[in-house]
């Protein structure tokens, strides 16, 4: 089946469950720190453990090509790497192989992601749910979120290119 269609259906299922569970992977740690509530945190842990087990089982069954290039396609997407700008290394050995600049940028971006998501009152998944529920702030957030991709291509990426 076409990946676009598969992810659309998956998204609908996840959106439904996310609305019913109020899931937020950012909110997990936040709630634990604020009020020692572990409900959402358990969701994030369950996701990680399930994905880890599923990858392990699929790997044992030969369904995962661990040596698959982390990216592919034509020259235009060579820089995509695992998802974005950074050349990530799946199972390729020690952290030292990654290189210090990449490591620093990844951790710094992680910190920024956590900080801004906390201040924005939820992770991107949660914001999509809230927007669909009728929260105006989240609708504005999504406006910034999608417009932010344009900002990324016009500003952030050229800036990063100066480092790498």
């Amino acid at each position, binding site marked *: *089946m076409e*990946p676009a269609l*598969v*992810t*659309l259906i*998956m998204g609908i299922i*996840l*959106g*439904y*469950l*996310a*609305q019913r569970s109020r*899931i937020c992977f950012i909110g997990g*740690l936040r709630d634990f720190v604020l009020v020692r509530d572990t*409900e959402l945190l358990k*969701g994030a842990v*369950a*996701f990680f*453990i*399930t*994905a880890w*087990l*599923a*990858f392990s089982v699929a790997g044992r069954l030969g369904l995962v090509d661990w040596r698959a290039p*982390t990216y592919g396609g034509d020259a*235009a*997407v060579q820089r995509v790497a*695992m998802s*974005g700008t*950074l050349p990530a*290394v799946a199972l390729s050995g020690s*952290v030292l192989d990654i290189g210090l600049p990449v*490591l620093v*940028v*990844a*951790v710094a*971006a*992680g*910190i920024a*992601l*956590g900080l*801004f*998501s*906390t*201040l*924005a009152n939820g992770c*991107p*998944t949660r914001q*999509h*749910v809230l927007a669909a529920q*009728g*929260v105006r702030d989240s609708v*504005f*957030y999504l*406006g910034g*979120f999608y417009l*932010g991709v344009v*900002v*990324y*291509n016009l500003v952030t990426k050229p800036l990063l290119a100066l480092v790498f």
Partner: protein
Amino acid sequence: MSLLPKFNALPGVVPRRVSAVTYGVVAGLLAVGVQVFFGVKPPPAYGICVACHARDLVAWLVNHLAGTHWELAPVSLILPLLTTIGLLIGAYVAAVRNHERRKVALGGHWRSFVYGILVVNAGIVALGCPTRLLLLSAYGDVLALLAVAGLAAGILIGTTLLVRGVAN
């Protein structure tokens, strides 16, 4: 709204409340499942990512409309992944079905707008949104694990700021 009675006529088909753990387990199985069984790759461990899939969607549209060559994942070259659109539809249906859809304005419109820009940029640079960082870590990616550590630190800093009343 006219569909509501019809939905409500199916009691017990889907539980009204779902625990966070249930979401985590279902999302984990789907994230790996769509890669293994439905070919949502390359790159690997890309089954769920709100930031990257939003990036793919916008980049695909702009590339096709304006002839640019903005980066997107190879799997999104022909048609973009539509996870984020699905999220909106699913959450909308759930909210309407359970009478939880209502207009709420918390009064931070433009602040939220700016946070949206900042979060998607941080997400794309940091390999993905929080969900994908966990997914990549589960796949065995060392860099993603470090980004998760950064993510946790960022949440702690943000929560501290909220408690002290510095932000919001």
